[in-house]
């Protein structure tokens, strides 16, 4: 079959990393980094998410087209967030 079957070891490794990451992000939340808390939490979440997408959802092995679909999703979601925030962040700027 055309599919690429991933060895079980990799799945187990990904699983372990994800659990470890969950533990880390929970512990880091108790360390006061000021504004950076959010950045760190989101960075860890994005790393975990990319692990799930690449390995568990198999985006790493699917044809290029599905990767374009994923990137499109991220781009347009980012667009919605960014352009809405442009409005809210610049409301208090003096005219």
């Amino acid at each position, binding site marked *: 079959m055309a599919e690429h079957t991933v060895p079980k070891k990799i799945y187990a490794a990904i699983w372990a990393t994800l659990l470890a990451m969950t533990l880390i992000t929970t512990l880091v939340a108790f360390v006061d980094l000021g504004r950076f808390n959010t950045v760190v939490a989101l960075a860890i979440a994005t790393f975990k998410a990319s692990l799930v997408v690449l390995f568990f959802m198999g985006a790493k092995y699917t044809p290029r*087209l599905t990767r374009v679909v994923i990137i*499109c*999703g991220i781009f*347009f979601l980012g*667009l*919605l967030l960014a*352009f*809405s925030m*442009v*409005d*809210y962040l*610049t*409301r208090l*700027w003096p*005219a």
Partner: protein
Amino acid sequence: MSAAPTAAVHPREHYLNVDYGIRSWLLTTDHKRIAILYMISVTVMFFIGGIFATLIRLELMTPAGDLVTSDTYNKLFTMHGIVMVFFFLIPSVPAVIGNFVLPMMVGARDMAFPKINLLSWYLYVIGAGITLYCITIGGVDTGWTFYTPFSTTYSNTYVFGSIVGILFAGFSSIFTGLNFIATIHKLRAPGLTWRRMQLFLWSNYATGVIMILGTPVVAIALILVAVERVWHIGIFNPALGGDPVLFQHLFWFYSHPAVYIMVLPAMGVVSELVTTFSRKRVFGYEFVAAASIAIAVFGFLVWGHHMFVAGISLYSALLFSIMSYLVAIPSAVKVFNWTATLYKGAISYRTPMLYAFGFIGLFTMGGLTGLFVAALGVDIHVTDTYFVVAHFHYIMVGGTVMAYLGAIHYWWPKMFGRMYPEGWAKLSAGIIFIGFNVTFFPQFLLGYLGMPRRYHAYAPEFQVLNVMSTAGASILAVGYMLPLIYLLWSLRYGEIAPANPWGSTGLEWQTTSPPPTHNFEETPVVTEEAYAYDKHPEMEFVA
């Protein structure tokens, strides 16, 4: 359904007479039958929306609100908006023409997901049913835009029901888009590379992308409004610190790309009509194809131009305004290329071509007035007035509806194997063109003079232009009734159509009319670019 044409030209079996009975229609997975089901339901909704429009125009003949109460009037324009936008303009060209023609243009036997295609029609019918039920038992008066806090707290009409109906139509639209993208990507005939695809496929591909990316955001926005109505607690409630402008951001993030869902397929139709009826290759194929994709992408950058006076910050208004000028460029590219295609073409003035001319003229006026409202300074004055109403009616009625009628006439022989009566068709096209302009051009003037939108009673000095607009509306109504009559008439008495009456190089014309259930006897192989009329002098008019 229609009696099988018994003339000698069609002895064999095709998708209409292969099976009879209600079950063969209601449980079909044949994209052509689903397209016909969509055509019937979309036409019904068009005339329901038209009734509301007629009542609105009748009310506006006099400055005082004397035909209906203001509550009824508010429901009329709301339901006119909801029915026309969600139940006619968005599904019309993609779901009717696209469903029928797209698989044939791609050279496939059917859509990628036939069962989901039928599910899409059922979702549309359920959505339409729920919305019509809400209309009959009381209607909804929030405007088709559902702005909060009026829609969440102060309106006491059937907002929840209408939202559920629209959500169903939204899912139907998502599944249509899903089918388009999967079909165009995966089911192209051998030899049909992206550069050889007809432009109708490019524009419907871009439409599918917008449907997929935009519809879910308005779905969640309307769900949030419904939640706030039911539990009286929600994220748009100013008392909790909620911001009504946030709803407008989420709503317009979809609703501006939605206007491109409405106009892009119509542009695809016009590309087909212009090339077929001027017997020429399209001018600048790559640019017109890329313009479709550019419209889909840029369409998501500009939604703030609906909110220039709504309370967004100065700097985001500047950003949305400059972006709105960017998004106008691909549309201009398309219009320039159409006119360049016409140049030195062997133009024949058949009805579909008349509608294509109508589209190019009126869509251009709509597009240029779009540049007016994109300018921040002008928009302060003209937004929420009849200038904006005229602007979007020029694009939606002058553009999409004209192209839809052109497409219906153009592919009518392919769908039913019958020709429409040319004389009547030209007459109704003329009536529609005149009626449209008499209806909506005065509204530009009204808007500039300062008549606000959605007004039940207006200042007396606006009456003359309003009476003109109502007169135009009655002409337009007559213009829209004619095709309904003579097209139904043509189903039984129309002249039998040959396989390729227009001598078009389109792949969908290379099979019989009406086509067999699996479209092509054997899967076609594409060997040359689209619209290669210079290579086919032997293909000329038959009809």
